[in-house]
């Protein structure tokens, strides 16, 4: 039996956009065990409810993460709206769904680029991010911000997005669809890419379920736990079928995300064709959240959970956010067991880690 060695991975590592540390126990070149530790980027954003009144807190919450920023804003608004017992005008729900799906495209294209960079395919990385830039431009045009949008508020949306702008958004997305297909072909059919992804880091359906995997990580193993199925936003009205794969390896996780990029374009197109006219926000006056409420939302990375507790004051008692990466760390530890040392960076990337979200 060969000697066991512990080598540190992170918190600073070329493939890691954010700091996470793993102690890798290795035997020869094989990882026997991975011990994760976090705590490098905690900012204490939840604590800021003591300082910010609940309507302004949304701007803090959406800064939890720069990638799923819109989702965080929406999730927070959802839990406060539930707490207040108010419902949002239909147009606002449509707009929220459109922007959330656009955010999913932004997140997945960023991830695809990071993955390509992770296995050393620089030009693929550049092309993924070039296409992502179109999505960011759309965000800037419609919301005024490229990564932090500040457009969602409790009770609806702060600004309406005119129908012409939405039509233009759909046309732009249809315009890059061809290039996205070319990009998808490289990820899914290229031998060099496949040699790094196929059969690497297999997570079975049972393991994914038992370890509580969420999002594309779970769907790649065939676990259908997409929160969008509960019909939040307008997902119930526009009809939605999650992208599922069965093999549970890195290739399947990549495939799920690529399929979701195209699915997002279709969902946006459906929303644009069905969006009703009307108000985008309701006025909330003289009401403060009292009691507890839990809202769930399907972020690009998986299910995120928002809890709010108020006591009828302007300042909430507590906000709690459980983000998808938190749930995906146990499956990560599982898939790292028995993998080759050289595959560790790719496997860490395939859960789409967002440590800023996890630690807040």
């Amino acid at each position, binding site marked *: 039996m060969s000697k066991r060695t512990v080598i540190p991975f992170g918190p600073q590592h070329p493939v890691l956009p954010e700091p996470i540390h793993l102690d890798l126990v290795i035997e020869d070149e094989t990882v026997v065990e991975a011990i994760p530790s976090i705590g490098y980027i905690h900012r204490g954003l939840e604590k800021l409810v003591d300082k910010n009144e609940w309507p302004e807190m949304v701007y803090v919450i959406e800064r939890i993460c720069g990638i799923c920023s819109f989702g965080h804003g929406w999730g927070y608004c959802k839990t406060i709206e539930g707490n207040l017992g108010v419902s949002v005008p239909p147009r606002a729900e449509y707009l929220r769904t459109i922007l959330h799906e656009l955010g999913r495209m932004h997140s997945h294209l960023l991830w695809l680029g990071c993955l390509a960079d992770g296995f050393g395919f620089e030009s693929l990385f550049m092309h993924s991010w070039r296409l992502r830039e179109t999505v960011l431009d759309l965000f*800037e*045009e419609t919301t005024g911000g490229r990564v932090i949008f500040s457009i969602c508020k409790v009770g609806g949306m702060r600004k309406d997005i005119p129908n012409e702008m939405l039509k233009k958004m759909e046309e732009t997305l249809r315009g890059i669809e061809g290039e996205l297909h070319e990009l998808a072909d490289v990820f899914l059919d290229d031998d060099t890419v496949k040699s790094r992804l196929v059969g690497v880091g297999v997570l079975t359906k049972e393991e994914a379920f038992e370890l509580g995997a969420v999002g594309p990580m779970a769907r790649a193993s065939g676990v259908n736990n997409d929160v969008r199925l509960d019909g939040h936003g307008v997902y119930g009205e526009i009809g939605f079928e999650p992208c599922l794969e069965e093999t549970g390896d890195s290739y399947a996780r990549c495939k799920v995300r690529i399929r979701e990029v195209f699915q997002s374009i279709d969902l946006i197109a459906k929303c644009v064709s069905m969006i009703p006219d009307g108000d985008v926000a309701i006025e909330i006056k003289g009401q403060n959240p009292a009691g507890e409420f839990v809202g769930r939302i399907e972020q690009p990375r998986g299910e995120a959970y928002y809890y709010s507790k108020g006591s009828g004051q302007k300042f909430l008692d507590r906000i709690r956010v459980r983000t998808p990466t938190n749930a995906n760390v146990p499956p990560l530890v599982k898939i790292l067991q028995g993998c080759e040392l050289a595959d560790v960076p790719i496997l860490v990337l395939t859960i789409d880690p967002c440590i800023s979200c996890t630690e807040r």
Partner: protein
Amino acid sequence: MAGLKIGKMVLGSLFRKPATKMYPIVPAVWKERTRGHIEIEIEDCIFCGICSKKCPTDAITVDRAAKSWAIQRMGCIQCSCCVEVCPKKCLTNMAGYTAPDAQKVTDTFVQPEKEAEPKEE
């Protein structure tokens, strides 16, 4: 051949204009809705201080006695919260980000004296 899948994209980019801009030599084109920095029409300000109270990052300081309104540019997160709550609508979020700096810059605006004309608000 499957190994050359990227070839088409790579060749395409040889004959295309660069996807990036030579910023800051080539100035960025701001969209109409871009939130870049806060501007104030100080003549209209009544120094009520609501913007300062609502600012999530405490970037705004209002001094009623000195009739001054100050914003810490690095602290501002461009959420437009102040713009929404301003009763006189004298704040606007304009396109164009503030220039990078080595120090945390605070811009102070002082209302010019105009005692001659009585204001009714």
